[in-house]
C-alpha cells in the first residue's frame, strides 16, 4: 500500500508542484510544433502528476480523484478524437487523416497545423488516462482480492 508521506514539506510541495507540472504538460503539448515535445510527452507528464499525488498524499487521494472506468473511457475517447480528426479529413473530400481538408476556415497548410494540434490533444488524453490506469492497477493493494 502506498501511504501518505509523513512530511508536511513534501505534501505541500507536491500540492504546489502538481498544477505547475500540469501547466508544463500543456506547454509541451502546444509547443511541440516548434521544439522537442508533443502529445506523448505531454500525456506522460500529465499522467505523472497524478502518480506524484498518489506517492505523496497516498493512494486514497488518487482514488478520490480518479474514477477508473471513466478514466479508461477517457483513454478510448482520446484515441477516438484522433480517429475523428482523420474522418473529418475524409468528410472534406481527402483521404483518412488528410488534415488539409479539415473543415476549418483557414488555408490548407494552416489546417494541417491545427490538425496536428487536434491529434496531439487526443494523444495526450489517451496516454495520460492510460498511464493513470496502469499505475492504479499495477500498484493496487492485495486486500481487494
Amino acid at each position, binding site marked *: 500500500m502506498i501511504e501518505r508521506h509523513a512530511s508536511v514539506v513534501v505534501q505541500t510541495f507536491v500540492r504546489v508542484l502538481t498544477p505547475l507540472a500540469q501547466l508544463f504538460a500543456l506547454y509541451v503539448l502546444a509547443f511541440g510544433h*516548434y521544439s*522537442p515535445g508533443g502529445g*506523448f510527452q505531454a500525456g506522460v507528464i500529465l499522467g505523472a502528476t497524478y502518480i506524484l499525488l498518489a506517492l505523496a498524499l497516498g493512494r486514497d487521494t488518487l482514488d478520490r480523484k480518479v474514477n477508473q472506468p471513466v478514466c479508461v473511457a477517457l483513454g478510448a475517447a482520446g484515441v477516438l478524437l484522433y480517429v475523428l480528426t482523420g474522418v473529418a479529413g475524409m468528410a472534406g473530400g481527402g483521404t483518412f487523416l488528410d488534415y488539409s481538408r479539415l473543415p476549418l476556415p483557414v488555408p490548407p497548410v494552416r489546417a494541417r497545423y491545427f490538425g496536428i494540434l487536434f491529434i496531439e490533444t487526443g494523444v495526450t488524453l489517451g496516454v495520460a488516462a492510460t498511464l493513470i490506469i*496502469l499505475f492504479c492497477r499495477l500498484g493496487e493493494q*492485495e486486500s481487494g482480492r
Partner: protein
Amino acid sequence: MNYPYWVAIGLLMLGLYTMIAQRNLLKKAVGMTIFQTAIILFFLLLAVKRDASLPIVSAADVDPARFMNPLPHALMLTAIVVMVATSGVALAILIRLYARYGSLEEDVIAERVASDETDPA
C-alpha cells in the same frame, strides 16, 4: 568508426541472453527492455549526420545535409511507446503470476502449473 553500433550489438546480445538464461521472470522482463532499447539505439544511429543540427528548421528550402534525419527519430518515438506498452502488460501478467504461484522463478512456477493442470482446483 562504427563503434556505437558495437555497443548496440553488445546490449542486444546481453538482453537476448538474459531473456533466455535468467530463471527469474522479472529479470527476463529487464532483459526484454534492454534488448528493445538496443534495437532502438541501432535505428537512431542511422539518423546521425556528422556536424548536423536538430531537425528543427527555421526557414523554407534549407540544405537537408545540415540537419539530422527526422524519420528514424519519429519511428523510434513509436517504438519506445510500444516497448513501454509491452512492459506494462508483461508486469501485469507477472503480478498475477506471483499472486497465484507465490514465486517469480521459472522452474518453481512450472512445477506448480503442472500440479494445477493435473488437479484443477
